[in-house]
């Protein structure tokens, strides 16, 4: 029974590692048609082509920049918002309002807002996509941070206040250090939401804004297994490596 349990657990590991391997192998296969279980041969020419093509390099770079900017601004403004609104007499109301866009499908949310972006000329621009993602993700950030501003956090801030710390000094010397771990977690979550977004980018970006997710979809639509796998690798790799790096080398926060 014990070995069965270990086996089932091991199966999960094998399945996901297989999926990852499939993407890597698929991106390097010369040909891989039915009924072959493994590719007929391997080649790096697609990877070379991608790394030499400006279009891909730009997509990777700008996607990263976009996601970093979305997560940075949402994390900081979300934190400030939650910090202030959690002490508001109507805090429960604000929190409920945060749930307005919470479960909305990004693609349908984008359609409902696209009139604004077309009217202002922001449709099809990187800034337009950034703004649309920000607006989708910001309430999510507020909800996540709201839960860290509990009575204990407020008491710590009050003590700092009574010891003479101004609002910004309290933020710098108490709030941010105490919330260091949650800040990292929220930042990472928001980064992934933006990095993986397809719906908003495709609707607001109108095909002009080419992120990696759009490349994946484009090649899936063209039934191109090889470039779909390659684009998927590029999409998964950065957050996966960052996570592995963080697990291996991250400093432990003070308790």
């Amino acid at each position, binding site marked *: 029974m014990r070995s069965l349990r270990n086996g089932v657990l091991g199966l999960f590991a094998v399945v996901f590692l297989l999926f990852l391997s499939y993407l890597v192998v698929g991106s390097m296969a010369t040909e891989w048609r039915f009924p072959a279980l493994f590719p007929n041969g391997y080649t790096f020419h697609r990877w070379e082509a991608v790394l030499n093509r400006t279009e891909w390099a730009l997509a990777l770079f700008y996607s990263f920049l976009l996601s970093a900017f979305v997560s940075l601004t949402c994390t900081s403004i979300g934190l400030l918002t939650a910090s202030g609104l959690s002490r508001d007499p109507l805090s429960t109301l604000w929190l409920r309002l945060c749930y307005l866009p919470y479960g909305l499908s990004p693609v349908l949310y984008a359609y409902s807002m696209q009139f604004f972006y077309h009217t202002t000329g922001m449709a099809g621009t990187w800034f337009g996509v950034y703004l649309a993602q920000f607006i989708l993700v910001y309430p999510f950030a507020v909800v996540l941070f709201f839960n860290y501003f509990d009575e204990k956090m407020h*008491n*710590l801030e009050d*003590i*700092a*206040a*009574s*010891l003479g710390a101004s609002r910004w000094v309290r933020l710098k010397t108490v709030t941010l250090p*105490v919330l260091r771990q949650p800040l990292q977690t929220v930042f990472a979550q928001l980064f992934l939401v933006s990095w993986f977004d397809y719906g908003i980018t495709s609707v607001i970006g109108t095909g002009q804004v080419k992120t990696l997710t759009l490349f994946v979809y484009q090649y899936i639509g063209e039934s191109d297994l090889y470039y779909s796998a390659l684009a998927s690798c590029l999409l998964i790799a950065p957050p996966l490596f960052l996570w592995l790096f963080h697990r291996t080398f991250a400093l432990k926060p003070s*308790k």
Partner: protein
Amino acid sequence: MSFLTVKEVTKKYNKVNLFDNLSFSLEKDQVLAVLGRSGCGKTTLLKLIAGLISPDSGQILVDNLPILDTPPQQRGVLYLYQEALLFPHLTVAENIAYGLRVRHRPTATIRLQTEEMLENLELTSVDRHFPHQLSGGQRQRVALGRALVVQPRLLLLDEPFGALDPETRTSMQLFFKRIAAQYQITAIFVTHDLKEAVAMGQQWALLENRRWNHYRHLEDFSKDPKTGLQQEIAYWKKIEHQL
């Protein structure tokens, strides 16, 4: 001459009146022990004086100046929670020095005053420890030191030893008495423990059924049957007699 004056303060909590025109005064360098059952409003009273909540009506004066419009950080009044609430990311020394740093005192002064306080608190050996590495009693001492080092005008202690075991509690009571005398502290010490109230206070108050009963002498406090001190003394005398 009154240092702290509370004048006709009222406060409702969940539509229930906690106080009916509460009025009392406290002189400088005196420790007022406040007794009362759970939920009678002791904590609310401290938070009103500290500025963490506002009264429905009335006035509060410190050194003859009204303070209700003064923000908490400018009142010179420090409120200590029952839980020590030390900053978890700062060491013992950094916690104690915090108030001095945010007031931009010179570095040399900060170091000197922090070291002096650590010695008084008997915490020099753990100055680089983090809060989670300390015992309950040690944490309370750090919280007290952090408050005292900035020389507050008024200290408000909300059952500070309530979470400690009896032995640690007794040693903390003795410690506080020594420190209060040394630093000439003006304080309100809230407790629901009668023995602690008698030990800590130089004046006493009983908050019961929205009424404030103030006793400036232990004799008066003892004579009032509401305080329960006579019953307590009688009980222990009976035990002694049986032995």
